[in-house]
């Protein structure tokens, strides 16, 4: 992990000099001390990661046009909502990747993520149904699971949620 941060640092400076490597070591250690990453035990699955990346790019293009259309049409049909999406006990990296991807896919924006139990709160721009919005987020988490591997099922019992009006 430290090596990849150093590599990124040197690439950003663009020169492979001792000064850049030394400052890269200092920066990467500082970053990793301040924000430990939960990457232990997580293996990237190349095919799943590729699929995650491709779907993500397609969704980014789609969502751009959805939002752009919303911007240019004068009469808006926006129906906003904040939807809770309960998740299984997933690795940090999966939750992080999914939360970022959700923010860049059509009509959804991650507002808050809490752990124990893991719940992702998502702001929705066009609400058709709460279940539909939840399913869209689950689909993205499934893809993130395909990329990094998940020890437990993504979906958890949402009976609590369905009881609410």
């Amino acid at each position, binding site marked *: 992990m430290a090596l990849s941060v150093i590599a990124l640092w040197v690439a950003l400076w663009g020169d492979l000099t001792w000064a850049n490597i030394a400052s890269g070591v200092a920066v990467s250690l500082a970053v990793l001390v301040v924000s430990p990453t939960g990457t232990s035990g997580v293996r990237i699955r190349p095919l799943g990661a590729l699929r995650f990346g491709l779907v993500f790019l397609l969704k980014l293009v789609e969502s751009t046009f959805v939002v752009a259309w919303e911007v240019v049409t004068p009469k808006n049909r926006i129906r906003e909502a*904040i939807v809770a999406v309960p998740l299984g006990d997933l690795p940090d990296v999966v939750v992080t990747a999914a939360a970022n991807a959700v923010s860049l896919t059509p009509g959804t*924006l991650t507002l808050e993520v809490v752990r124990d139990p893991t719940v992702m709160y998502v702001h929705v721009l066009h609400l058709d149904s709460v279940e539909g919005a939840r399913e869209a987020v689950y689909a993205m988490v499934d893809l993130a699971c395909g990329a990094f591997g998940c020890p437990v099922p993504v979906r958890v019992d949402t009976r609590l949620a369905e009881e609410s009006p």
Partner: protein
Amino acid sequence: MSAVDITASVFVLTGVALSVLAAIGLHRFGDVFARMHSATKPATLGLVMVIIGAGMRADDPETAVKLALVAIIQFITAPIGAHMVGRAAYQAGVELSDETAVDELADGVIGDGGQGLAEQRRRRHSS
């Protein structure tokens, strides 16, 4: 003008147009949360298209690598920025727009995970 020049120009101009749309969206949407939608999606794709266009005209691989890094870092940071702004706005008690139909964060429908945030919001509102 070569074909590469024309393609690069199309990418850059499309990217700029998307960025302009994102800016108009920031102005037009009803609340902070809807504005964050505009600040993430079209703005990110807009920047990426400008980067692709610039990458086509890059003279050396070093520049291309740097541009690719800019795109990757944008993918990572833009959603985090929007997430933090939205979270802070919710916590600070910013009004949701009239079009908001459901707020499961306030309702605390699942577990009690979001209650810290929702509680802070209520406290801000009552004071």
